[in-house]
């Protein structure tokens, strides 16, 4: 792969010379990429999943398992955080040179908090999808009712018109 500060435009433009006359003579756009791809020198993956805390080298404070009770763990982490901040205040008063360990523990708690919140996002996405589907079903049922009603009205009008015409 060659890199340049101001790269020229890609040379594919020559292939589209006759697009106005014959749109089918030009090549199709490339299919979407699968797997990993290289972008500006770094690798990206198309599999968008939240990396676990161990992958980032951060200790995980809340229990791992298939179903984490989010509310309980969030509240527990909040209490831990407040306790650690109190500890930091104490350390600063008594032994000011030992602040580093406490600050590290506080940042660990914050990282755990944010990771927990991020892992709630897929759940939120599925809940949003459920909500959208329910709304769509409701709208479609409403449309069906409307069409049925209009058809019945039209039938009634036609019968009345027929009656009026025959009466003449």
């Amino acid at each position, binding site marked *: 792969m060659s890199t340049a500060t101001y790269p020229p435009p890609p040379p594919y433009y020559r292939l589209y010379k006759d697009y106005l006359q014959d749109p089918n003579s030009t090549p199709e756009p490339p299919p979407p990429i699968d797997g990993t791809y290289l972008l500006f020198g770094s690798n990206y993956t198309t599999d968008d999943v939240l990396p676990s805390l161990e992958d980032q080298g951060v200790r995980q404070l809340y229990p791992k398992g298939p*179903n984490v009770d*989010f509310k309980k763990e969030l*509240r527990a982490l909040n209490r831990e955080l407040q306790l650690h901040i109190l500890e930091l205040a104490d350390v600063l008063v008594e032994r000011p040179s030992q602040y580093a360990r406490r600050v590290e523990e506080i940042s660990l708690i914050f990282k755990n908090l944010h990771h927990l919140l991020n892992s*709630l996002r897929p759940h939120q996405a599925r*809940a949003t999808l459920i909500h959208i589907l329910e709304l769509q079903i409701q709208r*479609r049922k409403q449309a069906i009712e409307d*069409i049925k009603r209009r058809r019945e009205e*039209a039938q009634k009008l036609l019968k009345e018109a027929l009656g009026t015409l025959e009466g003449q």
Partner: protein
Amino acid sequence: MDIISQLQEQVNTIAALAFNTFGTLQRDAPPVRLSPNYPEPPPANPTEDAANVAEQPKQMSAAFVKAAKQFDALVAALPLSDGGEEAQLKRIAELQAENDAVGQELQKQLEAAEKELKQVQELFNQATDNCLNLKKPE
């Protein structure tokens, strides 16, 4: 803003309050005597009001505790009626099936209505032609 973003904002607020508290207190604390060998620290300038120095920790810690309570309230407001991931996926599959069925019904009604519309239009054209006695131009 949705509840998860609010929770994330609240976590960041708590962090900001914490380090602002410690930073301000450290910056504004009056000097303290380290050992009896060293002379007394020079008297503090009159810009540091004693009331100010005593009020700030109280106010800042009160703000911090309030933010932490707010976080707990937000956590309690999480609509986490958890049946787990499988329950959600099952519900999505059910809704999709129902959506397909309703969609087909809608399509059927729509086609029937369009057919009727065409019929009525056709008949109306014929009726008006008869009324006006239109002859095709030779």
